């Protein structure tokens, strides 16, 4: 198992100039690592729609690239998006942060806890570049390859579950984030 903070540290070292969309538990630790107009804390969100939002951005900004840091619970709410991503090649990298629980609501297990094979699901959906890591050493070693090259890419990270996590809060109001991201992308 990988700690969430360690996983995000590795991502920070490899994200380059790409847009990073975070959801749920990763929002607060990512904000401590990176706070630029290209860091989009998707909260309040539409449940399960961060990969779709990222796909739209990646299609609109093909040279930029987009990384979506999604939870396993969020993925389960919209598994069909894996099919959509496979059908529309774009520089989109989806990290599936799998702690097998709904961390922000108190740690209840997800319906797929301990059984859902997100790498298998991504491959079956037609995504060709799929990576899985359950040890920090392997993620450190593999991140450079996984986070470069043509997308879509699905990266399944098994992370340690935590109890007693706070409900995430946006680092800035959504309207401010939207304006800041648009200005940066379109200037």
């Amino acid at each position: 198992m990988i700690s969430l903070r360690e996983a995000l540290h590795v991502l920070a070292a490899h994200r380059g100039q790409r847009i990073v969309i975070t959801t749920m538990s990763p929002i607060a630790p990512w904000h401590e690592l990176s706070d630029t107009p290209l860091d989009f804390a998707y909260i309040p969100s539409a449940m399960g729609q961060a990969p779709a939002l990222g796909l739209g951005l990646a299609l609109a900004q093909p040279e930029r690239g987009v990384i979506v840091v999604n939870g396993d619970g969020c993925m389960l709410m919209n598994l069909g998006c894996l099919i959509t991503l496979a059908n529309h090649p774009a520089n989109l990298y989806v990290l599936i942060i799998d702690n097998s629980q709904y961390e922000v609501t108190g740690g209840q297990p997800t319906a797929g806890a301990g059984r859902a094979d997100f790498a298998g699901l991504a491959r079956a959906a037609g995504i060709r570049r799929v990576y899985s890591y359950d040890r920090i050493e392997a993620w450190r070693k593999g991140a450079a390859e996984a986070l470069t090259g043509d997308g879509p890419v699905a990266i399944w990270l098994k992370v340690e579950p935590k109890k007693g996590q706070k409900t995430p809060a946006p680092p800035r109001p959504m309207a401010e984030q939207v304006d800041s991201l648009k200005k940066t992308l379109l200037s």
Partner: protein
Amino acid sequence: MLDGPSVAAALKGCGVTHVVWIPDSELGTWDQALSSDSDLQLIRVCREGEAIAVAAGLMLGGKHPVVAIQCTGLFEAGDSLRNIVHDMKLPIFMIVGLRGYYAYQQKKTSDTCPVFAEPILKAWQIPYTILENRHTAADLAHAYRQAQAENRAAAVCLAE
């Protein structure tokens, strides 16, 4: 009457870049015209809430999408609509196939879609226009331009 070629031409004339959709049987007749037009990108998704989120990402990145879905999908897409229109305040434009509209007007259907489609749009505070058989793609274009000029979300409901 809105057919594929006239809709494709109208959307292009409005500067639309992408159509994100899950068609119904009426919208589906536009597939050939939309998918063969090199100036429009047709994005096929798996669920309607996803269509709205993809369109939102396109808008953030500077493109001009429309979403085309059936009213049944509109019902599914409520959380996306709430978030994208009211939290992110992005002026999404939707074309919604209104299944059973004419049969409902004539009291010849038990389909509940036409019962709920307009109240749902009102509940989500999405201004809408119903396009009937007498309307043309010019009316669609007018609704789109008006919504864009006012920087607000909007829908046209295609009476079926």
